[in-house]
């Protein structure tokens, strides 16, 4: 019999892995740097966030949980910042965003 606690952990893990897959697929499928950054910054943040939440639930209460939550908050702050820094660097180097008019396949 699966308890509520186990169900919560399993659901969080499933969600985490799902969004991890979305991030990886997006990273491979998207046509250019900026759209890939979308996939990386959003899906990966939520994917890792859900997985870390699962880990936090497993730890129960106490210091390890606090650390896991700290890790989670840290990822939520740094991931978008890193994506922003990278895309800004790309924009500074004059890499043009892909638009639908460009058409064609991914590069």
């Amino acid at each position, binding site marked *: 019999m699966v308890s509520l606690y186990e169900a919560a952990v399993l659901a969080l893990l499933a969600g985490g892995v799902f969004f991890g897959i979305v991030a990886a697929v997006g990273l491979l499928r998207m046509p250019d740097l900026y759209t890939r950054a979308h996939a990386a910054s959003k899906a990966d943040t939520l994917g890792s966030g859900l997985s870390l939440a699962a880990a936090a639930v497993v730890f129960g209460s106490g210091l390890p949980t606090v650390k896991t939550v700290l890790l989670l908050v840290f990822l939520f702050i740094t991931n978008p910042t890193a994506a*922003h820094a990278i895309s800004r660097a790309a924009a500074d180097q004059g890499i043009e965003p892909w638009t639908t008019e460009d058409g064609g396949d991914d590069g």
Partner: protein
Amino acid sequence: MALIRTFHEHHDNSDCCQLSSGRARPVGGPAARDCGGPTVTGERLLVPVSESSTLRNTVAYAVRNAVEGENRYDAVHFVSPASRRIAGEEYVESARELLDRVEVWAGEDLGEDDPDLTVETALIGVDAYLFSPGDYVELLAGYAEDNGIGSVLLDPEFNPGQNTPLLPPLEAELDGAGFSVETAPVERGTRRERLVRRASLGQFVLLAGLSYGFYLLIGGSLAAFDLVTGAISAGIVATVLWRISLTGPVRPGRLLARIARMLVYTPYLLYEIVVANLAIAYVVLHPSLPIDPEVVEFDAAVWSELPVTTLANSITLTPGTLTVDVTRQHFVVHTLTEGARDDLLDGGLERAVRFVFYGRAAARGPGPRERGDDGGEDS
């Protein structure tokens, strides 16, 4: 003494020497009006200037080069393109001050001995629409023609009020328009703002407290050894970084209010993030990859660093939008889908951030679209 002449007021009123529109005159075409400016004798040098970290050195180089260089120049014209229509009255005002500074610098560089050099400064394009490098080239070419100038010296950091790198295309286009173009060989600074700021004791205490708390949390014990080493570490960190990490004075009351409102904001942000991710998941996993990416720009009604950072990060985390560049409060955002663009310009997130930092009253203000900012779409 060298002749230093200023055209500020003169040009500001878009009289005959002033190009009223950057688009009005074709590059290299005949001057529409002759303004009876200074008569054309000898070589003149045009130096477009804007606020930059290398400006001082560029001015020095221009003056030295004009007086002692291989090709001597009779006159150096420092011009500052500043469009009231695009950048606003404030920017024009700062450009005017900049020209005053340039004039003083040029005077210093010329020194007491009397080189035969005329220095002029002018504010141009006040009433023009300046968007692309082409617009700047038209404006500069028009000015050069009116004043019989054949050479242009560029500041390596020249970038009048825009984020897009302007220099390489500008250089190419000016070259194409028949000018001899040179970029001043001066050191490129990397730091535009001062890193170290004035700070108060409140900042020191707050930073030391945060570091101490973090140290004890990671250490996970309250033994005497940890308390002492933690205090020492926090002291070192705060001493080194207290004037860098935190900006602005610390007001405990306001800080607590912000933290409380941040706690209200977080669930909203989490909800937005989940929605964003489901949208992304749909787009990414859909077989035909239904995306329509576009870059939009808008000015957010938030001020100072922390709110702008919060908004930028929130934008990156939420539906199909990714902050590419922020200068002050001007956001350049890459949007993945049509729906994401609409949500962004409706300004829900922006209102939420204003709520966190400025309270409930500010949250009711209009979003970017209602302020008449339709995203100024960039190609």
